[in-house]
């Protein structure tokens, strides 16, 4: 009945959805933001610890949401560690393109990272679910820019 949904709900998504990585509070965070998707009621808090030279030393989150949003946040926290703010933002821009179109032609320079995010590409077929996948990245942007609130509205 749901076989064709394995594209969207790949095992890795279900796994990250059920057991999100870096799902904890970072008490000594340098940056943080809260992300909201008012439509779904998804909500997450994101914390970042930065290195002296401006790289992301650690990223963690807590919140509630669907498998897509939890998996996306989980994969994101794994992927951005070690990146500079610029790199993380660039990655976010590419990811949003991937989530909206299913492809990312210009992703050559970030091929490896995008590879890890690829399992979420299937969401582009579900317009109302794209925001679930991008909420974490909106929240990351907000945190990096010193805003306290992000919304995927």
């Amino acid at each position, binding site marked *: *009945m*749901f076989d*064709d*949904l394995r594209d*969207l*709900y790949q095992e890795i998504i*279900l796994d990250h*959805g059920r057991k999100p990585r870096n799902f904890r509070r970072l008490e000594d965070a340098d940056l943080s933001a809260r992300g909201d998707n008012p*439509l*779904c*009621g998804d909500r997450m808090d994101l914390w970042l610890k930065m290195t002296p030279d401006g790289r992301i030393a650690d990223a963690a989150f807590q919140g*509630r*949401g*669907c*498998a*897509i949003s939890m998996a996306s946040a989980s994969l994101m926290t794994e992927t951005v560690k070690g990146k500079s703010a610029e790199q993380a933002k660039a990655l976010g821009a590419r990811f949003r393109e991937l989530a909206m179109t299913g492809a990312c032609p210009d992703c050559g320079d970030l091929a490896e990272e995008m590879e890890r995010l690829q399992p979420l590409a299937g969401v582009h077929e*579900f317009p109302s*679910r794209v925001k*679930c996948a991008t909420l974490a990245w909106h929240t990351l942007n907000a945190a990096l820019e010193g805003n306290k609130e992000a919304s995927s509205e």
Partner: protein
Amino acid sequence: MTDGPASSAPRLDVERLRRDFPILAQTVRGRKLVFLDSGASAQKPRQVIEAMVRCMEERYANVHRGAYFLSEAATEAYEAARGAVARFLNAADPREVVFTRNSTEAINLVAHAWGRGVMRPGQAVLVSEMEHHANLVPWQMLRDDGRGIALRVCRVTDDGELDLEDLAAKLADGKVGLVAVTHMSNVLGTVTPAERIVAMAHAAGAKVLLDGSQAAVHRRVDVQAIGADFYCFTGHKLYGPTGIGVLWARLEHLDRMPPFLGGGDMIASVTLERSEWAPPPAKFEAGTPAIVEAVGLHAAVDYVTALGWPAIEAHERALVDRAMRRLSGIEGLRLLGRAQDRGGVFSFALDNAHPHDLSTLLDRAGIAVRAGRHCAEPLHARFGLEGGTCRASFGLYTTEEEVDFLAEALVKAREFFG
């Protein structure tokens, strides 16, 4: 006459009436469409669509304004719609029917014109925990408006019924000026005991507004028998057009209320210094109304009336019984609300799937259900379901097979998420 109630009860010919709804014939992502979101908005029968088309192709002009043929015809059609709605609600007088955009605007109208125009500082509005945001936010805005009007909230029992003891307690001091509660919950399916609420409220000196957005679709409503002061519903849920809703209110209330929106058609005379208001309902219908939509709503009301309430209610009871039986048996599924008196709206949560993931899955099977908090966040918080629920809601065209199909899909969905 036949000899027993079972056999004499009229039946809906669902297969046949489904043919009136062109949209239901389609396939979605390769599967037969199973539309179970009528509670959010119902589909439209061709009788409604055709009435709107005829209005625009044959008899359209602005109303109340022209002394020429087309305008007279349009005015007649618009006012005939008012008459049909008045009969539908068993209102005493068509002038008690005010056309609005939807239920939301109807309630806001009361919050402004009655809440700000008639209620006094020190009085309170009493809502319930199971209100749709449409019947909560306008009252919060009134409370926060600095006019000294308080907001009280009646509790809901664990079964999802209005807690009448709490209602009595909150009415006891006589400060409640208006009880504003739903006539049927859009989440729990609960039908509230309207007559009792009205009796209790009136005894305590309070007026009553009933939000009939869901109830008017599922039950025959008689505003005089209920004894309500204000009643509202929304066209698009009653198989009618978008862009039109109804506020019914007793004429004596409408007479006392100042207008809400200002503009053309709601005034008796205008000078630069001051304006005099027209009598109701015109006083509350500023500007060009939703003429074509009123005509469509008339057709919708006729459609439902022609099918007949006994048949509609029997059909719904059968669906509700079936759904209760089938859904209760699903492991890991939590059903919200177990009211004695309920209509065809079921909200539920699976233990291993978020409602959004579940609704995406069901969509793939062609099943349209709604996921979220259904504009009733406080109610979801009340039941500890901040993440929301999925909701299946039935219409005239819903079949027992569709209910079965939903139940099967839910079992498979639980397996999918493992």
